[in-house]
């Protein structure tokens, strides 16, 4: 009878162990070795979350390709960067969105483990980190590799609206975001820094204009984190840049008009800064 009990136990458990094995196989079969940018002539890659997705128009910011995706965590940015640098690297500069929201994004923000086709690009160690963070009720989506081709998702999103007033009204009475750094975000940001060093990619952090950021975020904590961990990374901080209200989709994001203005300013400043840095290195 005990053998019958053990046999039944094994038969019961078997499907539960087969499923993760099948999922693992799906990842193994579908994961490409490398990917490349659609346009190999562009040298500046832009990655990050909705701030850069909405804020930088890569048609106006020359020589750039915006691959930002709304709510994308640094885990996915790292995965994208890994894929794009595994094979023939066609870009030499990375602009990465770093803002008070991105550094503190934790489990209360679903986008930290935003689910898109980029999931298929994660290597085993990054996938493990992802699975540790992912809420288990999203587990069913792990079957995606079986019907979705892995690809890079992202791109400039020019939002036409201005809902700033409504957004400000909805934030009334709420506590400031404390901007306590989320460990996984910090870990992967550091990994991105190391990967850029390894692959000779010039890395810049960019903080796209926000509306009255100091009112909604604890900026001291944000800057302290940057100062402590990333002092050596050039930081293009436009968080406090004054723009007309009509340039904002909401308090955190620029709309199409705002992106147009900001992209031109960034274009001017960025290339000036690079020339300055090039001059300094020659001296």
């Amino acid at each position, binding site marked *: *009878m*005990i053998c*019958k*009990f*053990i046999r*039944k*136990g094994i038969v*019961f458990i078997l*499907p*539960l162990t087969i499923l993760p094995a099948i999922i693992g196989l799906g990842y193994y079969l579908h994961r490409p070795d490398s990917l490349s940018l659609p346009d190999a002539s562009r040298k500046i890659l832009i990655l990050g979350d909705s701030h850069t997705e909405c804020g930088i128009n890569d048609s106006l910011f020359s020589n750039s390709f915006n691959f930002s995706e709304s709510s994308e965590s640094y885990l996915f940015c790292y995965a994208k960067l890994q894929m794009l640098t595994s094979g023939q690297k066609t870009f030499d500069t990375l602009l990465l969105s770093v803002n008070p929201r991105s550094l503190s994004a934790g489990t209360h923000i679903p986008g930290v483990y935003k689910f898109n086709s980029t999931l298929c690009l994660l290597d085993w160690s990054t996938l493990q980190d992802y699975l540790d963070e992912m809420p*288990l*009720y999203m*587990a*069913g989506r792990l079957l995606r590799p079986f019907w979705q081709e892995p690809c890079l998702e992202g791109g400039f999103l020019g939002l036409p609206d201005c809902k700033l007033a409504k957004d400000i009204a909805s934030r009334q009475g709420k506590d400031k975001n404390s901007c306590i750094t989320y460990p996984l975000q910090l870990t992967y940001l550091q990994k991105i820094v190391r990967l850029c060093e390894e692959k000779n990619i010039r890395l810049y952090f960019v903080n796209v204009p926000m509306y009255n950021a100091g009112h909604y975020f604890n900026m001291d904590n944000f800057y302290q984190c940057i100062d402590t961990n990333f002092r050596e990374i050039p930081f293009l901080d436009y968080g406090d840049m004054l723009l007309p209200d009509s340039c904002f989709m909401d308090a955190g994001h620029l709309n199409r008009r705002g992106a147009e203005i900001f992209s031109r300013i960034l274009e001017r400043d960025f290339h000036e800064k690079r020339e300055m840095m090039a001059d300094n290195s020659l001296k």
Partner: protein
Amino acid sequence: MLFNSIEFLFFLPLVFCCYWMLSGSRQWQNLFVVAASYLFYGWWDLRFLLLIAFTSFCSYWSGILLQKNDGNRRVQKWISAGNISLNLFILGLFKYFNFFSENLAALFRSLGYEPDWVMLDVLLPVGISFYTFQALSYTIDVYQKRISPTCDIVTFFAYISFFPQLVAGPIERATNLLPQFAKSRSFDYGKAMDGMRQILWGFFKKVVVADNCAVAVTVIFNHYTHESGSTLLLGAVLFTFQIYGDFSGYSDIAIGTARLFGIDLMKNFHFPYFSRDIAEFWRRWHISLNTWFRDYVYIPLGGSRGKKGMVFRNTMVIFLLSGLWHGANWTFIVWGAYHAFLFLPLLLLGKNRKYQDTVARGRFWPNGKEVLQMGVTFGLVMTGWVIFRAENMTQAIAYLRRMFSASLFSWPHWEGCGIAAGGILILLLVEWIQRDKEHALAIDRQIRSQGVRWSIYYVLVLLILMFGGESVDFIYFQF
């Protein structure tokens, strides 16, 4: 080692296989139980093993001495009193020394004296309240000749340290558990299968219901000064289910695990939130502890016989002791007193044994009166849990005051409670349907089709894997 840990996932099958390989020899089997149980317990802290071994040895030796002095009642009284005092001293030292010391110091300070007291910095051994009471049960039962003392030290150590119920009960009686270790056990397929079902249900209650409720409860209780009355009410409800899911879940896992080894532990919970009055609630909640206090404290004090004053005193004593058993904090004592004052009117009016059967027996739907009774009882119990959960009496009073304020009628903050709410609904539905069964997943006789039964098990497993909350320690480990 926690039940919901990877280590236990490997530990249990290994122990199960080795145990039944030794079924030819009861002595070797019991020795193996002791070794496995000490490994299980020592996983927390090796130092704990010294204490449990010492407690076990003292209680075992007291049984031997009681037997040697059979006929000399006076000496037997001293022996049992000595062992009881020693066990209570150890329990008091680890659990209550600082509490009494702090309160006595506060009393002296209020009189203008500044005492220079020694405070102990001791680690509270996991499960000390449980196995100490189990050891006491043996000594008292031997003294009262309910059971013969055992000369087999291995069997006795197995009785005290049996790992499924070692750290959070049920608090077993020597009369129930010791004879099971004293005889040979053979594998019972039906019992083992039912044990697995009970383990599965226990995990559902702990991992899906209790752990998900815990997340919201922690936030609400930590920020109670900023929350509305309705949100605080939500917090109280969630904690009511958290403590039930946690504790009864653990008990189900313990009982189910024991059945895999051919051991029957006593039932510890019997669907207490379907109780129609407080007396019924206390017959269904933490049954092992309540019956222990009833048999070893209440009845020896006179029970409900005698004058009303004596009955009042005896009832207050056991409820206060029950509260104090849970921990060294005024909140537990006040919680015990609160329930005593709810119970006493029923006892004094002779209505404490009114509801002995299952609510709405033979019917699916309860009638209006039963719904009202269950609702009122639930509300009273829930209010008590707020006191139990609070860090101190100031917080408990403030929480309750705020909960019953005008903001009770505002919309609560529901965010993050979806999974907990879903788990609670499933729990209530399943347990309501199964309320007259031994445990909620005792479905082998109702559902004949193995396919249907397995589908239910798979659904529960997937719910546990997909909706399992952030792992939180079993609440009753701290007791």
